[in-house]
């Protein structure tokens, strides 16, 4: 070819070609490909093109935060906090925000399913057949051999199942949740019982305190009611003119909560109780008052040596206590999740008695009961779960109903819940998502998502008795049915005592029967003369609560004379490192199937989408381990593998791992991602029956493989990322 096509000619040709194709293809407006489907019947209070807002209750954890959900044309599009609800006053946490990704999750159980324990193909059923199955399971078994296993939310369903079990003579339903296990709720309420003679959750008035000594309590993360505690924390810091509250955290690794502390005291795990007693003694000495009997036997210098902290640090903290007006000590988290957890919790409560803050501003109170509650029901401790497992193993459970909890994932695999399911002839799950427990069940009769449900939830920790109300914000998206409705229909079908136990037309009628004692209460957030009007207000305001705080002061008489001996916790296993599992602050116990929660960076390490092993850089250096090296963490109960994150703010003798990942089922975003640290926990309980989850020692071995953790924080050159 003699003459090359000139650049100019080429451009001319190209332009002409582009113009032609643009004319031919680009003319059709996008509207031609759109169809619009108006309502057939428009719901009441809905206007074309305008949003409708519904007040309801969050069900991502049991804290009972009120929500206002923005809906448009029948779709829920944004979750906002309910500003009226005293629990959260219009605020939400990240898990509450992402609840929409649970509602519109592509992996939800869409139909009632005959699951067949994951063996062979699952097949769909219709709801009539499903109700038939439940009715026969109720009717054809001895009531004493029926077991109900419930989650910590929702409360209305727990009440309904309790009534049913009570009426037919079945054992009371067992409630469990991984959060309550990591919060050691059984230990806290037992400690209150031992010291105050009243089994209830203690309430810590962080907002009005000016010095908070937190012994492992991770109240800014997932602990009990994180949104309300975060608000109280903000008030403690900046709520009072001129005086900024001071905050000290005793914890072996710097958690998100410890990161916000003015002083982080990295003590040796298991010595928190001793340190609390030592501070009590030092305060008494600094104040020049008589040392109370509880603290007498303690030698602060020896405690400082045992706990591997400086004596000056403890003396300095005691001085802070002396100088402050409203000191407060809070027990929780890993401090209580030890073999000596009960004594530690009691020691910290005794320290509060020494501060003289029982029933005082910025002190310790006893949480009020829920508005329609007679006595405090705490979730089952892991020891009580073990009792259930033994009962199953002995063949004393013929049918097991499971709702709102995923014990196969949440309980340490060493407890053997999954293996024990084979001794139960029939397992019926009401799971919304195909989690590990649901997959191992005979049937899944999916409940609605929380945003499609009626219900109520009592606030666990709040200064006021609060009953948060839930109502559907959209009509059910899939072919699911409310578990309460299924049980009511099945009871009617079973007839006899079953039908008498649940004489309700539907779930709403049952909820109204539970609300009716509140009608006419003059101290309520609203007044209504009769139940229908009450229900309407209940939906409109997103719940009902007492106007006045109903906190009661604990009786402190015995707290300072009781002989307390927390000692040092015992650790099981021959390992070199203390093992600290903690609940992931962003994912929590059940957030792994929501992609935006996976994408949120962990507040302390900024890792997303995976599990990591926190290790002090010095320790790692000695072991020849680098960032992103996959290591095997081995305990006497088993081993897990995850990539290492070199974390500067952790004791060199401690290894930490977040809980929340490591699912084998639970949908495409969760399954096969990360590792589950509870599977290497060996089973040791404290005196209150809570699991000593931080009482395990482990060894660490390099595997030679690497997995680059996807972190938010900068790495040297993002393009250096290599695939494994």
């Amino acid at each position, binding site marked *: 070819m003699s003459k090359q096509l000139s650049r100019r000619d080429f451009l001319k040709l190209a332009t002409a070609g582009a113009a032609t194709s643009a004319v031919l293809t680009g003319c059709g407006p996008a509207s031609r490909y759109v169809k619009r489907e108006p309502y057939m019947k428009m719901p009441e209070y809905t206007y074309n093109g305008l949003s409708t807002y519904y007040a309801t209750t969050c069900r991502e954890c049991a804290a009972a935060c009120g929500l206002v959900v923005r809906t448009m044309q029948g779709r829920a599009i944004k979750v906002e906090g309910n500003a009226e609800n005293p629990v959260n006053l219009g605020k939400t946490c990240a898990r509450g925000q992402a609840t929409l990704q649970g509602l519109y999750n592509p992996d939800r159980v869409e139909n009632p399913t005959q699951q067949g324990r994951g063996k062979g193909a699952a097949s769909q059923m219709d709801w009539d057949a499903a109700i038939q199955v439940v009715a026969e399971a109720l009717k054809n078994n001895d009531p004493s051999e029926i077991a109900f296993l419930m989650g910590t939310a929702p409360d209305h369903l727990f009440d309904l199942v309790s009534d049913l079990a009570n009426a037919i003579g079945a054992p009371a339903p067992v409630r469990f949740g991984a959060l309550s296990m990591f919060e050691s709720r059984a230990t806290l309420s037992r400690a209150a019982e031992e010291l105050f003679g009243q089994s209830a959750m203690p309430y810590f008035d962080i907002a009005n305190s000016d010095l908070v000594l937190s012994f492992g309590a991770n109240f800014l993360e997932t602990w009990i009611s994180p949104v309300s505690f975060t608000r109280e924390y903000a008030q403690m810091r900046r709520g009072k003119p001129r005086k900024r509250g001071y905050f000290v955290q005793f914890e072996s690794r710097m958690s998100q909560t410890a990161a916000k502390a003015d002083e982080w005291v990295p003590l040796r795990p298991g010595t928190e109780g001793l340190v609390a007693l030592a501070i009590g003694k030092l305060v008494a000495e600094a104040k020049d008052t008589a040392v109370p009997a509880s603290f007498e036997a303690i030698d602060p210098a020896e405690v400082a040596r045992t706990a591997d902290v400086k004596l000056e640090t403890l003396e300095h903290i005691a001085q802070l206590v002396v100088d402050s007006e409203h000191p407060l000590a809070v027990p929780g988290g890993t401090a209580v999740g030890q073999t000596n957890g009960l004594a530690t919790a009691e020691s910290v409560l005794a320290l509060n008695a020494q501060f003289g803050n029982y029933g005082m501003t910025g002190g310790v109170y006893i949480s009020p009961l829920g508005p329609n509650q007679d006595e405090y029901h705490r979730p089952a401790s892991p020891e009580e779960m073990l009792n259930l497992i033994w009962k199953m193993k002995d063949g004393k459970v013929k049918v097991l109903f499971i709702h709102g909890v995923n014990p196969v994932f949440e309980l340490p695999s060493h407890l053997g819940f999954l293996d024990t399911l084979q001794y139960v002839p029939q397992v019926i799950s009401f799971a919304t998502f195909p989690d590990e427990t649901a997959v191992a069940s005979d049937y899944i009769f999916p409940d609605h998502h929380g945003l499609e449900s009626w219900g109520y939830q009592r606030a666990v920790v709040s200064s006021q008795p609060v009953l948060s109300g839930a109502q559907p914000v959209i009509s059910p998206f899939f072919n699911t049915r409310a578990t309460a409705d299924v049980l009511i229909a099945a009871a009617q079908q079973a007839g006899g005592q079953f039908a008498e136990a649940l004489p309700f037309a539907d779930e709403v009628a049952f909820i109204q029967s539970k609300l009716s004692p509140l009608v006419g209460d003059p101290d309520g957030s609203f007044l209504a003369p009769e139940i229908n009007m009450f229900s309407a207000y209940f939906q409109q305001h997103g719940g009902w609560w007492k106007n006045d705080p109903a906190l009661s002061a604990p009786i402190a008489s015995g707290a300072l004379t009781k002989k307390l001996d927390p000692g040092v916790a015992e650790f099981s296993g021959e390992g070199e490192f203390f093992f600290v599992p903690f609940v992931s*602050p962003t994912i929590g116990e059940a957030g792994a199937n929501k992609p935006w929660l996976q*994408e949120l960076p962990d507040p302390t390490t900024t890792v997303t989408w995976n599990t990591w092993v926190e290790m002090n850089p010095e320790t790692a250096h000695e072991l020849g381990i680098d960032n992103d090296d996959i290591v095997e963490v081995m305990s006497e109960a088993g081993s897990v593998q995850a990539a290492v994150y070199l974390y*500067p703010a952790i004791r060199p003798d401690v290894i930490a791992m977040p809980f929340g990942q490591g699912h084998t089922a639970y949908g495409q975003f969760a399954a096969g991602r990360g590792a589950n640290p509870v599977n290497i926990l060996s089973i040791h309980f404290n005196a209150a029956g809570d699991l000593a989850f931080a009482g395990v020692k482990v060894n660490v071995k390099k595997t030679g493989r690497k997995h680059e953790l996807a972190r938010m924080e900068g790495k040297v050159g993002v393009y250096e990322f290599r695939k494994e």
Partner: protein
Amino acid sequence: MTSNLELPVFTNNSEAELGGKWGMVVDRDLCTGCQACVAACSMENNVPFVGETDMAYGRGMHWIRVERLWEGLEADYQEVKMTSYQPLMCQQCHNAPCEPVCPVYAAVHSMSEDINLQVYNRCVGTRYCANNCPYQARVFNWRDYTDYRPGNTADNDPSWSVLQNHLNPDVTVRRRGVMEKCTFCIQRIHKAEDTAKSEGRDVRDGEVVPACAQACPANAITFGRIDDPESMVSKAAETSRGSLLLEEMRTQPRVTYLAGGA
């Protein structure tokens, strides 16, 4: 009327406009790093998630991120401190470095709201603006993330579209090759202005609440009119703890940070 297109002015240094309009105050002492703002922002503004692999490449689409920085790393582990968390979003600079570098005027200044805009339909994806942003507040759509399924070769799985039901109709869903960033929830500003106008009044203080401020459990974020000395945000910005990020670059950011610590 014939079209005499007025090109946007990209250095906004006229005296009259220095006061600004919308502004934000972030109290670093109260921020607990809980990520509620990040989740709320993503849900409100249809921000897509990108999956583990792309997150590892640094392609996360967060419009707001909570930065955490270490102090005392050279010392013993007991002395290591985490400085207060710092939520960082577009600072809505009055004199924005992103604006003059855009060849297609996609990064322009809003003269009526005095914030930086990103006009998605103009953007051709040169990424000059992101390179020029000293706060690294801009993020780029490397794929059609809203349709994309992380870890799956099939980019358009029909079952996955279920997740798109919660998309906010007030905010554009961005396509591949488009730059985006925090808008100060301009859709909420417009909504409040529109409501106020229909009721014949001015926008009240506290009527416009961006998604991040609305969610924040610690109330660490305040938003409002900084040209009104009586507004909550102006009063919050007045304390001696306040500072602007990279103030010396004279970008005139609209977000004031209150120092953490004592």
